[in-house]
């Protein structure tokens, strides 16, 4: 469905032209974008230090998500976050600030927490991506997830999956985390409801092994 979103070729061209036009204006203003010559072949590109030519149209890419290889067709400008949500229906990863300021879209890239709104989907190729869906499910909670429920570390719940992702990565690398450590683990995760104290309590209960939530 997504592949033919631009419809017949002629209208597709309009869309591309408009995109290039827009991109060109930005490039002129900022000097950031180098447009590769249209006719360049792979060798010529390599000589210029360009390893791959992509876009601006959609293209098929492979992403390894939660242990499974998924193929999607996306434009280069599509963020990993949008790819997860709009193309793969993995909506546990939340879109909130869309510029790396709130942590709600945190996923693991090769085990490390990253904000998926700040990564293009195509840059996530070749990495192991883990989303909240891959970490736990309502029926198969992790000790940390269960502790979040037990300690009421979610109010509206919109920041919660991101909080869990950040905290899970931190506890994996530091299983003996103390209060200051768990605060820092979620320092980039914003919660408007103010659940932080309960998030800290949940994490510390897992560190202490005192979580009762699994039973």
């Amino acid at each position, binding site marked *: 469905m997504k592949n033919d979103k631009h419809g017949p070729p002629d209208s597709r061209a309009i869309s591309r032209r408009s995109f290039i036009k827009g991109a060109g204006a930005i490039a002129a203003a900022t000097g950031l974008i180098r447009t590769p010559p249209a006719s360049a072949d792979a060798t010529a590109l390599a000589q210029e230090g360009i390893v791959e030519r992509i876009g601006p149209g959609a293209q098929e890419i492979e992403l390894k998500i939660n242990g499974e290889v998924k193929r999607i067709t996306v434009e280069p400008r599509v963020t990993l976050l949008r790819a997860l949500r709009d193309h793969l229906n993995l909506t546990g990863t939340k879109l909130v600030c869309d510029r790396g*300021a709130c942590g709600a879209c945190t996923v693991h890239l090769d085990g490390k927490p990253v904000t998926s709104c700040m990564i293009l989907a195509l840059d996530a190729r070749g990495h192991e991506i883990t*989303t909240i869906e891959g970490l736990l499910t309502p029926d198969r909670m992790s000790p940390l997830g269960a502790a979040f429920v037990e300690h009421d570390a979610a109010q509206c719940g919109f920041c919660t999956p991101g909080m869990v992702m950040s905290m899970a990565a931190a506890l994996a690398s530091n299983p003996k985390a103390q209060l200051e450590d768990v605060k820092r683990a979620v320092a980039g995760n914003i919660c408007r409801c103010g659940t932080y104290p309960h998030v800290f309590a949940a994490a510390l209960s897992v560190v202490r092994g005192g979580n009762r939530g699994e039973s």
Partner: protein
Amino acid sequence: MSRRVTLNLGFQGNLKPVTVVIPDGEPTPWQFGERFETVGRPTPRIDGALKVAGAARYTYDISMPGMLYGAILRSPMPHARVKRVDLSRARRLSAVRAAIRMDDTVVRFAGQEVAAVAAVDYETALDALGLIEVEYEPLPFVADLDSAMRPDAPPVFEGGSNVQRPTVNGHGDVKRGFAEASAVHEAVYLTPVQTHVSLEVHGSVAHWDGDELTVWSSTQGIFTVRDDLAVYFNLPRNKVRVICEYLGGGFGSKFGAKPETVIAARLAREANAPVKVMCTREGEHLATGNRPDAIQKVRLGARHDGKLTAIELVQHGGGGISGGSGSAGPFLSLYHSPNLRTEESNVFTNTGPCSPMRAPGWPQGCFALELAMDELARKLSIDRLEFRRLNNSNPVRALEFDIGAKLFGWKEKSAAPKSPGPLKRGIGVASAAWHALGASGPQARVIAHRDGRVEVLMGTQDIGTGTRTVLAMVAAEELGVELSRIDCRIGDTRYPFSVPSGGSMTTPSTTPAVRQAAAHLKEKLLRLAAPVLGAEPSDLEARAGVIRVRFDPSRSMPFADLCRRIPGDSLSAEGERVPNYEGYRNDQAGCQFVEVEVDTELGIVRVLRVVAVHDAGQIIDPLTARSQVNGGVLMGVGYALFEARRMDPRLGVMVNPTMDDYKLVGPLDVPEIEVRFVEVANGFNNTGVMGFGEAAHVATAAAIGCAVYDAIGVPVRSLPITPDRVLAAMEAGA
């Protein structure tokens, strides 16, 4: 038909019997000392696992076959005539399926909706916005309160004044009150525009099936959205269905169908396909509401003995293009004064409309009043807590002052000498109040199924307070069954009516309806059980999932067995939230104590500790109750120290419509928070519940302001208390 019931009303240690009249069908209200099995126990929310696992479906997560993505074009101009909107180039993209323009011919703030498109994916929708041509004729504008109040200011609404007629309240004669005062304090206090920053932005998914409209909306009021859409599209209400299973925050900004919801429905109609429109974060900051800013001129007078003789407020609130920016609430209710006058004027500016936000008007009023109280206390050389006790208006708060002061160590901390180093500690206390009685009207249905499961259906929504959980707990308690037996379904206008989730009204408005419905269902169930157990229905009781004969517990049957005997499909009963009957007090009190540390070299304020003491009626779930208080406090920390919409006065645009430039409280800013509840038997409804989402937010920023004053010896009369303001205040005061 009605009956009389005697209730013990008041608060702990101060209960008095009061005979109240309750309507027939209303269960006898729960009272202090009631022995509960489910209610009152800390209970993890029943939908907690769904939220933690990211499996709870929010509006933003809805996806339907063939669904299009919408995007909104907003005015870059703060005030302009829209001469021409040309959608034709946008429409020419084949991936664009609908394009509309707004009806307004004038835009009055930067961020106002001008046009919108729907396309097969979000990226194309953004492309299409870039192809819409709009011709604006710029008009003169005012982007801040001061400019808007000048006599020669350009009017926001043609032919009108920006400063609206004041609302005046009070009693006595303030002139006389100030003449009688031994000390008078007068100063101007400034509070900023705060935006709600709900993590889930405003938005909706709209789907037409013939002339029937279904809308998933991120809303605090599914029924108000339904009603607004029915009016807008001229449809009978029963042709509009609104669904909100989960809601990523609202804080007062999400009542009714706002432009993005109407836009989604219009685009969906034009495209003949479902359309999702979610605001961008920028659009969210600009156009979906805010807590209005205020200029508050405060004058207080008191005698040597510490008794207030006069309170006066002259306030101007920045409503943006809307009204409702008053802040007199705290002045009118926190402290006794024989002479009191408040004057509030809403002022229009060319900025986004203000809207209710957690305790609308109160945090700003509380900050001004309480800091002024401290400044006057200093003139009178009287302890600030003592000054408040002397003038306190609410007996519950008197007890709360005692509890809080002891827990906080007010006396010891007040006596402690200030540190000689650059880090100065300070303490502050402020009073809170709110009105959280709940509203009549909500309805609920409770169904017992033959398989032994119980369903609670109610058209309310969970703003994050744990509505599903508290409703299920109340149903479990009344039916005498385990909580795990209950499925609670909310968030759909096809369920029985409920009121919007706001004003701390949800729990006191919804739980009594569920309890009444469950009581009616229990009557039916006991009638079914009576012949089986060889007893009269009135001799039976249900506890912990077992129906038994009260005087002969050996004659019993499990609830599940009884359900198997239900003839037909199921047994169902309805309940309604009846109007409040007589109760103890119409208001609720509360107070908060705060300790801060100020770096006097860098101007940075850290909140170290907050002791929050609040009234509570019957607490259904102490665990989620504490979450709400934490949330109120932390939002107050942000309001005190970080949050402010910054406008460029020359361009009339907001310069920080993001979540990196608009600063919220983060994990590292969290103080130690201690919560204490004072039980208040308030009456009014059958569960004895009071809400407290708002009360917990009212006093925090004020108490922080007072603590900063204590720490550095000079008041910072503008929120947020940023480092530059701290340093400037110290320099001016030195």
